[in-house]
């Protein structure tokens, strides 16, 4: 069982490492976000694989999204998503008012421009988790005031 601090520091160093490599010409900047997102995707898949999947457990798509907001988020980030909204047409917005990967950075606007780097992995995490629950999606994130952020999930019809 690994400690929370260890994951936090590993995640930070992964972000730093990707961008450091990009600066040294080992990859373009845009690729960093993609790489972080795909690492998150793999982890999200792996996490859900451990969970005994019984598709009958989930009544519908909304039920799955609630699972992500409650159980999945609590397991990974020790708290639930604070607010889930949907247009009932395949778009969901998950709001975390105190996102655990941002709380150490700032409570407001300082460092805001760096926040997106620290959200890419989690976007992938959500996408990967959903993928193993049978849902294909595109996940993006935005921050307007730290440490609150919103993850937008767009379900793709397969």
């Amino acid at each position: 069982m690994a400690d929370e601090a260890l994951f936090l520091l590993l995640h930070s160093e992964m972000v730093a490492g990707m961008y450091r490599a990009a600066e040294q010409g080992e990859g373009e900047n845009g690729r960093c976000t993609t790489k972080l997102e795909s690492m998150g995707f793999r982890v999200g898949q792996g996490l859900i694989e451990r969970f005994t999947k019984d598709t009958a457990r989930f009544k519908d798509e909304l039920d799955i999204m609630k699972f992500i907001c409650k159980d999945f988020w609590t397991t990974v980030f020790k708290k639930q998503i604070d607010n889930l909204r949907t247009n009932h047409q395949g778009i969901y917005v998950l709001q975390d008012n105190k996102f655990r990967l941002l709380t150490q950075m700032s409570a407001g606007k300082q460092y805001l421009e760096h926040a997106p780097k620290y959200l890419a992995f989690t976007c992938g995490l959500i996408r990967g988790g959903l993928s193993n629950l049978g849902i294909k999606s595109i996940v993006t994130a935005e921050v307007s005031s730290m440490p609150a952020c919103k993850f937008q999930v767009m379900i793709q019809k397969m």
Partner: protein
Amino acid sequence: MSRQGGRGTESKKMYWYLPFISPSASLQLMNSELFTLTYGALVTQLCKDYENDDDVNKQLDKMGYNIGVRLIEDFLARSNVGRCHDFRETADVIAKIAFKMYLGITPSITNWSPGGDEFSLILENNPLVDFVELPDNHSTLIYSNLLCGVLRGALEMVQMAVDVKFVQDTLKGDSVTEIRMKFIRRIEDNLPAGEE
């Protein structure tokens, strides 16, 4: 009722450890595997980004170092451990407190050199490698090399220059995982350490 896995022997191994379980129990396992899975994803990505295993090993060591110089502060704050008087005390603290705190295992300490400046940590099982198999074309990859960097970085911040390396690895077929730690010298005051 279990899901169809697509990963051959790895899946079978997984299901042996995880018989049908209630959701809350499996959530516990999910949590403990976040770090392991994230680490695995990192190693996989680095193997794609770098041509050869040696470069990946170096990157893991460097990243570990950067983590170590920060992790040490978290460790000192939470464990309340004071300054160690000698390398033996350091070994005890690393094995019995630090490893336990961060990875939930307690390696044993063996093979002290006569001068007391080298010892081995023996890990019966390495949580980083749960469900990992090294593919054939990565025989020189030191999968858990991050740990070496972490230890090196952390100890540098408490004024010890050390050399850390894996000498046995269960991933490579050895019966245990063995990390060898060697004390090189004390780092005197007024030398600021920092990020590589």
